[in-house]
């Protein structure tokens, strides 16, 4: 019995040493980009810094409460330095941000290896650049976001870049009115390049959170958008509201690498 125990311990030690030795001898194979970092892109929607839940009410100002029923927009492209991560994302929070937990968690929209270990800048656009906006839904397979017929408006000859829809309620009178803001047209596309000094961890997942605060979409320089005076924007030629929303949308984003 005692001998058996000694033999078992002996073999255990030998096996451990052998295993350690083998690992030590193995080279890490980083050919063909095997060790490249993985980047996971998550989109999150907020209102005043809090997770925005579709259907929930938020204080817009002293008298108005706002609740969103549909929020989606095109995000094109996403570029780290000169590497395109994606040509186009369609951020659609309508059926994703259905409760606080899901809204806090965000939605993973991309996960893939990237061919770089660091970045110094990040470029992004809201809406679609002209080349993509000149395409039509029938040019794409149904798995592509630009195939969606509900995101194309033939009267504009444009995709709908962003949709913000919901209700505003006057807290004093109880009156509730719907609002719908659709933006589109090549002139509404906005693009920006920002410093993004980051090192990506090899062979592991680096999560890039793209956070959008909708408060900032409807507010500029501390002044709220006059929703009651502009309840709808989806007519041809009504570009002022479209420009306002898209410029704000561009600046409503923050990028955080976990």
């Amino acid at each position, binding site marked *: 019995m005692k001998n058996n125990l000694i033999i078992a311990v002996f073999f255990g030690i030998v096996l451990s040493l052998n295993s350690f030795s083998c690992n030590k001898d193995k080279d890490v194979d980083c050919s063909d980009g095997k060790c490249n970092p993985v980047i996971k892109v998550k989109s999150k929607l907020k209102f005043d810094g809090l997770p925005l839940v*579709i*259907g929930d009410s938020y204080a817009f100002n002293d008298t108005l409460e706002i609740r969103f*029923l*549909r929020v989606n927009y095109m995000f094109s492209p996403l570029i780290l330095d000169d590497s395109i991560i994606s040509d186009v994302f369609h951020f659609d929070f309508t*059926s994703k941000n*259905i409760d606080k937990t899901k809204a806090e968690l965000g939605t993973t929209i991309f996960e893939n290896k990237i061919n770089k270990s660091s970045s110094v800048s990040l470029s992004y656009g809201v809406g679609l650049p002209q080349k993509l906006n000149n395409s*039509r*839904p*029938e040019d*794409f*397979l*149904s798995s592509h976001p630009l*195939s*969606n*017929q*509900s995101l*194309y*408006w*033939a*009267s504009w000859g444009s995709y709908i870049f962003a949709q913000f*829809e*919901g*209700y505003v309620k006057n807290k004093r009178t109880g009156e509730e009115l*719907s*609002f*719908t803001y659709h933006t589109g047209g090549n002139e509404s596309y906005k693009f920006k390049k920002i410093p993004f000094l980051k090192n990506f961890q090899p062979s592991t997942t680096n999560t890039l959170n793209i956070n959008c605060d909708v408060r900032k979409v409807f507010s500029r320089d501390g002044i709220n958008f006059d929703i009651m005076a502009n309840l*709808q924007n*989806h*007519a*041809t*030629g009504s570009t002022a509201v479209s420009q306002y929303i898209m410029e704000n949308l561009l600046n409503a984003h923050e990028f955080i690498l976990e």
Partner: protein
Amino acid sequence: MGRTIYLWLLITIVFTYCKPKEDVNPLLDIPYNPTSYQIVVPPRFPILEIPTDNPTTVEGIDLGRRLFYDPILSKDSSMSCSSCHLSEFSFTDGKAKSLGVDGLSGKRSSMSLLDVAFSYKGLFWDGRAKNMEEQALMPVMDPVELHETWPNVVEKFKRHKDYPTLFRKAFGIKSIDQITEKLATKAIAQFERLIISSGKSKYDRFLRGEVLLDDDELDGFDMFFNNTFSLPDAQCGHCHNAPLFTTNDYFNNGLTSAATLNDFVDKGRGIVTGIALDNGKFRVPTLRNIVFTAPYMHDGSILTLEEVVEHYSRGGHPSINKDPLITQVVLTSRQKQQLIKFLHTLTDTAAINNPAIQNPF
């Protein structure tokens, strides 16, 4: 000599007895050589996506067409798919709610099958079927529709004088035991993909510059798609966008009022997704051939196009998740008529009279 005869007899008996079973299977004498079929899609329509495991063939369509019109799929052989999807009603049934084999009423109206091949966001009013092949399974089993079981249907196919041959020609089965519900629904889906717009409606010809719309139709067109500031935005095109005149998305169009999200009589999409905000939402139907598909809405509660336009111009009934696009629209009675006249330009009789999709029996 006598010995030789006995020997030959013995050899014959042995060979006859030992002949492999499949060699006597008459199905194998029928050639399996399916002919690929190219469905013609009108210009500017979405890409027609055919599942890789169910390519469209002449033989598959032939089988599917028969199955679509054959009451063999129902419990008492009294109803077929076509009982609720008649070509003259643009593949609806002209009823508010369809009746099944037991005389029981379903809770929703029959949906048009026109351009169903492009329904990539789910089928039925609530989107509970992911694709056409999956959709075709369900009415057979539904107690308020055909109220049959697939094993029974498959047994009926096996005993049928024609179907084993048709399954052989369409799918290359080697024995009747290979007839399955999956193959049957594949064939039905192949056939249903043929129920497609012809591109010959007045609207389509107008887009191609072949005809002009009259003034009323043109005003209706402009209001429908909000093409001009000089006319009201009727807000129709958001959900009924061209070219399909549906986005195939799910909306609460304000048909019924509901104090809370749990108060909808029919929760629709919400039952499928489990998301409360989806309660009371239904898939947007196509407006192509709308003149043939009355009564309207998922519950068939609106009888005429005039009443439909009235419903939307009033902004529908209140509920927490009523779509923000359903809001009061001030239209004159003339403008309402102009909208309806535009809807008539979507009539496509060539599509529903296509000989290839009529009853083969």
